[in-house]
């Protein structure tokens, strides 16, 4: 049989973003010796344009929405939403990286190539409709992320971070793979739609079997989204990794992992949702509570944001617990809002941290409001959004999530979640307090002026945060339309 029976143009169009990213990543590697000496900024610029091309390709793929490669991939609104999200996250990661890498004397092409590979993996995860493809996407994304976490190889903490991330990450992936194997054994398929059909069908496999498989996948994915009780790695990795990479890890892989989470649990395992709902309920509760209370005690900003990101994963899990299309849409919206505010906050940290990332403490932000009012104002917007003050994306995200939860009668989870967000206000306020109400510190006095790349890296997410807060309909309508997954 000719190959064209298996692969046709439509499939290739639907797979175009991944193709572009993989090719451009390789091209960057090849160009390294050519460009290294002349202009080190070129790598960043090439990758930004590759990502823009991938963005256009995602939109084009959406024009031709449908399954690809015999149902291995599904390009639908949901997939497109997350593809665009991780690509935008990639762009917002590269913008502050220019100056950061120059300051650490670490401008190479592989940083950008790895970033593109990782994003390609995440795009694949977003569109995957088969457990094996999910696994491949997860691995492409994760392996690149492991290397990125240890990118500053002379930095001890970065090495620790990379090793920890790699070991625990592989462990988690293994859990996930076990789950996949069990499902294949039980249902004879790895396609999510067929798995769903098999569990609900007339000769359904033993519910225990399926339940164990779902639980194993929950462990694997729970690790990737840093949900409690699988969150132990996050603070160390976030603290040790280079700051732009931390920003990336907290937004990109997390969003993609949640995409997979939602797709698997809301399609294949939806029929047994009464079984997994209590697990997710407990995990959401633990993530919010542990994340927020541990963050109260942190003095290192990256660590603080790491715990905060655990708490935010908990909020998204609340949306998953709601087990409804509204909940799925709320999770999608929240992840978009979270990506903007968190990446923006990390961009400020990377701006201020100085050579060798010396300034990472809360106290180092002292007086930033006087020394660099624009930077401080942007950080203030991100922090207010993380607190959940109205007119920011973070507020609407929380609002939609808890609205979905209440619609599903999760009253206690909502009340605990909202009280948690009041606790969280305290540690975000600490940063605001030192920034505006203390006298300038050494770090604020030594802060470099904003470069164009960095200004863009601050202003774009700030605009995004405010737009999501004032005109949420633009994103929410799309999320709402896409939340009905292919079943």
């Amino acid at each position, binding site marked *: 049989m000719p190959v064209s029976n298996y692969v046709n143009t439509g499939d290739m169009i639907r797979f175009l973003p991944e193709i572009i990213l993989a090719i451009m990543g390789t091209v960057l590697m090849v160009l390294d010796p050519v460009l290294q000496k002349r202009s080190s900024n070129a790598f960043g610029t090439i990758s930004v344009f590759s990502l823009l091309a991938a963005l256009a390709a995602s939109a084009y793929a959406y024009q031709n929405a449908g399954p690809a490669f015999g149902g291995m991939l599904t390009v639908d609104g949901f997939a497109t939403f997350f593809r665009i999200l991780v690509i935008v996250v990639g762009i917002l990661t590269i913008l502050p990286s220019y100056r950061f890498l120059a300051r650490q004397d670490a401008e190479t092409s592989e940083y950008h190539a790895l970033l593109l590979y990782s994003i390609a993996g995440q795009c694949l995860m977003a569109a995957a409709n088969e457990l094996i493809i999910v696994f491949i996407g997860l691995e492409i994304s994760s392996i690149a992320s492991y290397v990125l976490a240890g990118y500053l190889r002379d930095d001890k903490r970065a090495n620790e971070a990379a090793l920890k991330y790699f070991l625990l990450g592989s462990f988690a992936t293994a859990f996930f793979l076990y789950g996949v194997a069990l499902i294949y054994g039980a249902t004879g398929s790895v396609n999510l739609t067929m798995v769903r059909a098999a569990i609900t069908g007339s000769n359904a496999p033993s519910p225990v079997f399926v339940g164990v498989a779902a639980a194993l996948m929950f462990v694997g994915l729970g690790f990737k989204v840093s949900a409690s009780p699988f969150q132990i790695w996050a603070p160390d990795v976030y603290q040790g990794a280079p700051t732009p990479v931390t920003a990336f890890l907290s937004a990109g892989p997390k969003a993609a992992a949640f995409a997979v989470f939602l797709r698997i649990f809301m399609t294949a395992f939806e029929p047994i949702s009464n079984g997994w709902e209590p697990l997710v309920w407990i995990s959401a509760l633990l993530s919010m509570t542990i994340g927020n209370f541990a963050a109260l005690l942190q003095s290192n900003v990256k660590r603080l944001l790491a715990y905060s990101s655990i708490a935010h994963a908990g909020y998204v899990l609340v949306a998953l617990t709601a087990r409804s299309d509204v909940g799925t849409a709320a999770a999608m919206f929240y992840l978009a809002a979270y990506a903007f505010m968190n990446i923006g906050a990390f961009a400020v940290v990377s701006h201020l941290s100085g050579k060798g990332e010396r300034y990472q403490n809360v106290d180092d932000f002292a007086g930033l409001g*006087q020394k660099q009012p624009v930077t401080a104002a942007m950080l203030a917007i991100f922090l*207010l959004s993380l*607190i959940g*003050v*109205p*007119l920011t994306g973070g*507020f609407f995200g929380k*609002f939609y999530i*808890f*609205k979905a939860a*209440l*619609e599903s009668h999760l*009253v206690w989870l*909502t*009340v605990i979640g*909202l*009280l948690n*967000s*009041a606790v969280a*206000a*305290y540690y975000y*306020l600490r940063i605001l*307090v030192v920034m*505006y*109400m203390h006298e300038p510190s050494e770090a604020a006095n030594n802060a470099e002026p904003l470069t164009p790349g960095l200004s863009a890296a601050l202003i774009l997410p700030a605009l995004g945060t405010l737009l999501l807060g004032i*005109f*949420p*309909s633009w994103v*929410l*309508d799309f999320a*709402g339309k896409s939340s009905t997954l292919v079943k």
Partner: protein
Amino acid sequence: MNLLTVVLFLPLAGFLIALMIPRSSGGGSRAWALVLSLVTFIVSLALPVMFDRGFTGEQFALDVPWIASPDIHFYIAMDGVSLWLVLLSTFLTPICVLISWRYIQHRAKEFYAFLLLLEFGLIGVFIAQDLFLFYVFWEVSLVPMYFLVGIWGHERRIYAAVKFFLFTMAGSVLMLAAIIYLYNRAGTFSYPAIVTMLSSGRLTFAGNEQMLLFLAFFIAFAIKVPLFPLHTWLPDAHVEAPSAGSVMLASVMLKMGTYGILHFCLPMFPSASRTCAPWIAILSIIGIIYGALVSMVQPNMKKLVAYSSVSHLGFVVLGIFSFTQLGLDGAVYQMLNHGISTGALFALVGLLYERKHSLAIGDYGGVAAAAPWLSTAFLITTLASIGLPLLNNFVGEFLVLQGVALSNYTWAIYAAIGVILSACYMLWLYQRVFYGEASEDVRSHVPDLNLREWAAVVPLIVMMIWMGVYSQSFLPPVSKATARVLDQAQINVPFRVQIDRNAEVARAR
């Protein structure tokens, strides 16, 4: 364009422009803030003129869809209560600019920008008719106040600012949960629509459900009022805030709580309000007496005024939970009175602090000799605050006490003790600060009012006298609105007999 929209968005536009005024312009931002807040005030004066006093419903309504799903509207309108509260906000903002004119030198640009943003948030709270929009304004007004206290306050400002933020936040997240719950039940955020559904019986709550919703709203409001025992943030925030912050906090922000109770809790959750009324009344009475007693022993002037606010606001809450027309009218009038007279007290204490850099009562004495006009202004304010007839507080306190006496005589007796105590602590304060031998220090450091300070103080005193002498300029729209609150809630059922008497009293009046 709708007049109310103009009044709402002028301060926001002013805030955005104030951010763009270059730091190097010196006094540019404060001049801008003064001009803009005066313009806002003048425009807002058209509101009572155009307000149709014969018409009971919401006026100046503007209802624009904001977010499609869930159905959120930018829905603003005002009734007779919000009319005066909006005017109170626009009236006090220029005064705040004037009293900060010299005191705020450090980072003045941000200060005035935040002051305008605060005005925007406060006006919004009083006119939002969409519950979601109400919550948005409720939180938005929190942020500038947090910065005003935290950046320009006194020594313990950071502690006070964080405490203020966290207290309010903790209360308001529960309110958010209740708002979402209401939406899921009613299918709309529109407050008038929900009230209509409730009164027509298309939407009913089980007893328990209603109680939890009521508490979620009420606790958020009670923290803001603040009702004893949730008041502990208030002395800190008031004492540490710069005087403009104290004025806005005491005069307008606390009214967000009482307005919320009146506007949302009573009409939406009538039977829960009724069930809780005795408990709330007891807490209010404790607040009235406790606030007054603590005021009496304060060595710090600002703290004294702050605790007196706890006492005065207790009257307002007590008046609301008397469920009588007189009590509600009195409560609303007392909200306005407290805004004027306590605002004036904080402004005058701020002027003293600006002169001598001390808030301790013991550091003063004999100011009357050094600054006779300042002393006179303070005396009038003091007398207003203790409820001397022909000054504003007398009218409010009288109505509240009368209304409360109609529903429960014992409560009225206890509440009246608060009036007596207020005379004690205020007159004693006046005696210690203004009478006696003026020390050399006071003589040299406390000059009399200058022209700018006159401009800030005189309007307040004029209002005290006007509101005390001719309350008919203000009360009729208030009565219409409160009558509707009582009616909407059908809350007066158990008090049927007394209500008829109220109506007679009202007619006679």
